[in-house]
C-alpha cells in the first residue's frame, strides 16, 4: 500500500481554477522512464478532482487502481493525496489534514498570495513517514473522528465530472499533460486497454 503523491493547492472562491502550491511524489514503484508521466497524471488527476470538490467537503475518487483523496478547506487551502486501493482511507485523510495544517501554520500569511516557491522538505518527510500506515496509525487514532464532514466516495473520475463534461476533452485541453501522455491515453482507449500508468 502506498501514497503516490501529495499536492497542496490554493483555490480562493474568486478564482476559476486551483493553483498548485507545493507537490511531492513517491514514484519509486514505477519504471524509471514512466515516472515523469506518472507525476503529470497525478497533478492532472488531483487538480481535476479538487476543482470539482465543494468548499469544506471531502471526496474520494477512484480511477483504475488508485484513489484520490481530496479536501477543500473553508479558506481555499486544499490538499489531495493519491494512494492505491489498499491504503486505508482514514489514514489518507489524516495525512491530508496534517500536511495542510502544518503548511498553513508555517506559511500562515503568505500562502494565499501570488506565486511563490515553497520549501517541500517537511512535505517529503511526512510522505515518507506515512508510507507505513501501521506506524502512524497510533497517532491518527487519537484523531479518530474526522470532523462531521461527510465524505463523498466515487468509483470513477467520470462520476465526479459535471454534466456534459467528458474526460477526453479535459485531457485534450489540459496544460499539465505532455503531448505523449495525451497520445498514449488516446491509443490506450482505442485499443480498449486500461492505461498502464494508471
Amino acid at each position, binding site marked *: *500500500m*502506498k501514497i503516490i503523491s501529495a499536492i497542496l493547492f490554493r483555490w480562493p472562491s474568486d478564482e476559476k481554477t486551483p493553483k498548485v502550491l507545493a507537490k511531492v511524489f513517491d514514484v519509486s*514503484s*514505477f*519504471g*524509471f*522512464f*514512466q515516472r*515523469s508521466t506518472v507525476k503529470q497524471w497525478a497533478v492532472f488527476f488531483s487538480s481535476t478532482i479538487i476543482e470539482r470538490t465543494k468548499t469544506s467537503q471531502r471526496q*474520494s475518487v477512484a480511477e483504475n*487502481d488508485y484513489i484520490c483523496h481530496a479536501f477543500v478547506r473553508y479558506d481555499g487551502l486544499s490538499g489531495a493525496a493519491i494512494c492505491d*486501493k*489498499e491504503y*486505508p*482511507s*482514514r489514514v489518507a485523510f489524516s495525512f491530508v489534514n496534517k500536511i495542510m495544517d502544518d503548511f498553513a501554520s508555517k506559511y500562515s500569511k503568505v500562502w494565499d498570495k501570488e506565486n511563490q516557491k515553497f520549501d517541500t522538505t517537511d512535505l517529503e518527510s511526512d510522505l515518507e513517514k506515512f508510507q507505513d500506515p*501501521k506506524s502512524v*496509525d497510533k497517532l491518527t487514532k487519537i484523531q479518530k473522528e*474526522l470532523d462531521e464532514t461527510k*465524505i463523498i*466516495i466515487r468509483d470513477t473520475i467520470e462520476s465526479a465530472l459535471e454534466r456534459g463534461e467528458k474526460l477526453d476533452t479535459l485531457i485534450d485541453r489540459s496544460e499539465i499533460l*505532455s*503531448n*505523449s501522455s495525451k497520445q498514449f491515453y488516446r491509443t490506450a482507449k482505442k485499443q480498449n486497454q486500461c492505461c498502464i500508468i494508471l
Partner: protein
Amino acid sequence: MNIKQVFLKFYQILHQEKINEWGIIDKQDFPNLNFDPFYLETKKLGIPLEIMTSIHLYATKKLIKFKTINEKSSNDKKLQKIDQITLAIMFFNPLNYTAFNWRRKLLLARKINLKKELKINKICLTKDPKRSELWIFRKWMILNFILNNPNDLDLQQFILKELNLSGYCSEIYPRNYHSWTYRNWISKHLSIPNLIHQELNQNMKNWIQSHVSDYSGMNHRQSIINWVFLQENSSLETKNAILIDEINLNHNLLIQFPEHESLWHHRKFLFLKFLNINQIQFNQFLIENQSVSKNFDKDTIAIYIEKDIFNQKEFIHLDKVIQNEIVLVDYCQNLINNSQFQNSKADLPISYLIWVSQFVVLKMKDLNLIGFDEILKLINKKMEKFPNPKIYWNSFTFEKK
C-alpha cells in the same frame, strides 16, 4: 550516424555498459537530455522511439538472409552477426520466436556467454515484466545450464537473486501471472530450511503486509506451505508451527484491514489445512458464551493443540478454534460497521463465519462428533446483531441427528 552504426553501438552498449533498466523515450518530452543516439545515465538506458523502430526493421531484414545457416558448421564471424541481430530483435520484439530459437542454439553451441545472456534477459524484463517469452527463455536457460551443473556456482544464492527479480517484476506490475509462476517454480529448488526462512518469513512477510489485497502473494504462500508439507521429513510439529505463524500473521492483518477479501480467503485455506493435518476433538460442554475480548493473545491459538501423552499424537480442540473465529469475526464486523468508509465488502467477516460453521458441521458429521446444536446456537446469537446476512443464512442447510 547511419543505421548500421547505431545498430552496432546498441550491441556494444549492452555488452560493455552496466545497465539495470531500459525504456522507450519520446524525444519531445525530454528536450534537455543528451541523446547519443541513446540516453545512458545512472545505469538507465533510454531508447528513442524512432531509433527503436529502425533498428528493429534493419535487424529483421538481415535475419531473413541467415535462414540456411547451421550454427555448428558456420564460421564465427557469421555467428557473431547472428548474435547481434537476434539480440536486437529479442529486445524490441519478443514475439519473434526465430530470434529466441537462434539464441538457444548459440547458447547450446557455447558461442555466447550464459551469464551475459541472463543479465540481458533481466534488462528486458524491467521494461516488459509481463512478456511470457522472456520468462520462458529464462526458465529454459536455468533448467538446461544451471540446475544440471550445480557445482559451478552457489545455487542457493543464485535462487535468492532470482526471487528478488521476480519480486521486482511483481511490484511494477501487480498480479503478474508470469512472475508469480516463475517464483513458485524456482523457490521449490531452495533447500527446505532456506525456503521456510527466506520465503515465508523474510521475503514474503513484508510483501504480504504491504500488499494486503493482492491475493497472488497469499496464493504463493499457500503453495509453499503445501509443498513443504508434502516433503516426507516434515514432522507434525513443524507443520503446526508453520501454520500457527501464518494464522497469527493473517490474524494481525485482519484486525487492521477487515475489508480485504483476499485475507479472508487465505484464512479459509489455513483453517482447512489446520483441521486436515490434525486430529480433532470436540468438547460440547466447553462451549460457553465468551465475551468479546479486544486483546488478542498470540498464545491463545497454541493452546488449541494438545498432546495425547499415551498415543504421542497431537489433536486440536475444535470448540476453542471456533470460539476464536467467532470472536475475530465479531471484532472485524464491528470495525467495518463503525467505519465512515462503508462499501459492498461489509459482510465479509460474517460470510466467513457462515462458511466455517458449514464446514465444521460437515466435518463433525464425518467424524461422528456431536455438538452441532451448540455451535449453531452460539453463531446464531452473534448473527442476530447483523441483520443483513440472513440472505446467506437461508442457504445453510444441515441434518439434525
